[in-house]
């Protein structure tokens, strides 16, 4: 018994029947072969990136922080944020409408989703951009009655507004389905408990159902946001100077097509990476109460591995008191 490793067999007592397990591990030659193969492929890729002069890394470097590119970047971010905001807010409204018992209200929501999910977003963008051809003026007034204010459509729907409307309204159709799934995932008993306490339908939805639906809603919404960030590049077609169009304008002049596209690619990758990181923290926040122990943040993991200092208890989830769990 003098070869007992500390990790094995210490709990089950020292009786002669509980000999420690010392076994030869199974070999996995396949893993080594595949690892070597992938390393070789990566080496080839890196070699190509570095040695192929057509990438023109100097040009990439020259334009990476240039003013037009950074301005385009800001427009891309603005478009993403505003379109997602419209998408989420309108999506909640559409989801609640869809779950309404009034057939006209739920029907209207269904038709909206049917139309905006059923047509390509590029086509929608072009229609918004060319709205003036359809309605030359937009007026506010009483339906079928007098009009109070009238706007020229071409002034009202600038390219950026067309892009915001096109992307936001299209997103709302997708978001509403995500939010509806989230609402349906909350147990009926939650609504009953809230109603039994005298909470109104609206309060029940806002205070009890939606916060719990968030746990189901957040991961796909993160995907939607990342997808939206990339979809904003479609706005280049209607002359919105976002990241891609800013790059296109430059290479249209200098013919340095590939390096400028690489500038755009790197910026898109940076932004989507940041968004993925943010998604982790948002998911963690809405998971409170639904898991007994919170997943560690990357910083906490690093600290646990390298620093000797004990972890501070996560603020959102107090360490469970084990005596209560059976």
């Amino acid at each position, binding site marked *: 018994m003098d070869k007992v490793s500390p990790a094995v067999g210490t709990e089950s007592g020292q009786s002669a029947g509980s000999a420690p397990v010392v076994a030869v591990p199974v070999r996995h030659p396949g893993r080594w072969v595949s690892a070597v193969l992938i390393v070789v492929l990566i080496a080839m890729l890196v070699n190509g990136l570095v040695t192929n002069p057509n990438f023109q890394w100097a040009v990439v470097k020259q334009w990476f922080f240039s003013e037009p590119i950074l301005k385009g970047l800001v427009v891309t971010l603005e478009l993403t944020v505003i379109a997602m905001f419209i998408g989420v807010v309108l999506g909640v409204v559409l989801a609640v409408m869809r779950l309404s018992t009034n057939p006209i209200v739920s029907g209207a929501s269904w038709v909206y989703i049917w139309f905006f999910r059923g047509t390509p977003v590029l086509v929608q963008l072009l229609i918004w951009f060319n709205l003036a051809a359809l309605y030359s003026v937009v007026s506010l007034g009483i339906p079928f009655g007098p009009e109070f204010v009238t706007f020229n459509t071409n002034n009202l729907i600038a390219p950026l507004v067309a892009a915001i409307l096109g992307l936001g309204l299209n997103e709302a159709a997708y978001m509403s389905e995500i939010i509806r799934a989230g609402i349906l995932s909350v*147990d009926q*008993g*939650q609504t*009953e*408990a*809230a*109603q*039994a*306490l*005298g*909470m*109104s*339908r609206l*309060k029940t939805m806002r*205070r*009890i159902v939606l*916060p*719990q639906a968030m746990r189901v809603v957040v991961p796909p919404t993160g995907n939607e946001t990342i997808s939206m960030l990339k979809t904003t590049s479609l706005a280049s077609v209607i002359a919105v100077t976002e990241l891609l169009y800013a790059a296109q304008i430059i290479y249209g002049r200098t013919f340095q097509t590939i390096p400028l596209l690489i500038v755009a690619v790197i910026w898109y990758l940076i932004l989507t990476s940041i968004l993925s990181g943010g998604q982790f923290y948002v998911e963690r926040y*809405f998971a*409170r*109460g*639904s*898991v*007994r122990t919170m997943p560690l943040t990357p910083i906490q993991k690093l600290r646990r591995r390298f620093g000797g200092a004990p972890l501070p208890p996560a603020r959102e*989830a*107090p360490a*469970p*008191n084990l005596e*209560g*769990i*059976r």
Partner: protein
Amino acid sequence: MSVPMVKAEGVRKSFGSVEVLSGIDLEVARREVFCLIGPSGSGKSTFLRCINHLEQVNAGRLYVDGELVGYRQKGEKLYELRDREVCAKRSEIGMVFQHFNLFPHKTALGNVIEAPIQVKGESKSVVIERGKKLLDRVGLGSKHDAYPRQLSGGQQQRVAIARALAMEPKLMLFDEPTSALDPELVGEVLDVMRGLAEDGMTMVVVTHEMGFAREVGDAVVFMDGGVIVESGSPREMLTNPQHERTKSFLSKVL
């Protein structure tokens, strides 16, 4: 004689073509612990849910504290109450569910203070004080910040009772409060309910705990197939049932 807390006259309820309640008549006096027993599917839970209008009755009249549940009567005509009025009435009736239905995204204290703040508009500091006292009273003084998932079933149900009490209800409804609990944990919940009964709370309890009904109950009703088969004082009825159906049911559960 004062108005009974709950009064049912010929209450009927159907789900589609299935009649679940086929004419229920009963009265629950103030400060009384009223137990509903019977096999599953006998309609006792449905009746309980009718009392706070989670289910609408199809026929008959149901009164709480002398007022019609869910409707207003003017002459011969009934008018449905508005959402806001239904909510106001529900806020005076506490309900405890078989599966607790605690809000999982809120702590124990968060569960307790939610409705008094949101529904009654009371100030947060007052409600927090009261909430802490209530949690102490149900024996969870050290669990204010625990989330429901970190609590045992018995602890969750006690939080649920505290949550209902935080609204300072005049009537408490219990829908099989111990049926989802490990046998070992039933006692702690029944103890809390016993304490409530001693403080004079009016309680309607759907239960399979015959011991509780006998010790704490002031009146007991045996339901089967949507009708009341037998009613009386717990001591008499549970020890010496008159009806054949009651006898066979009790012989199986006691």
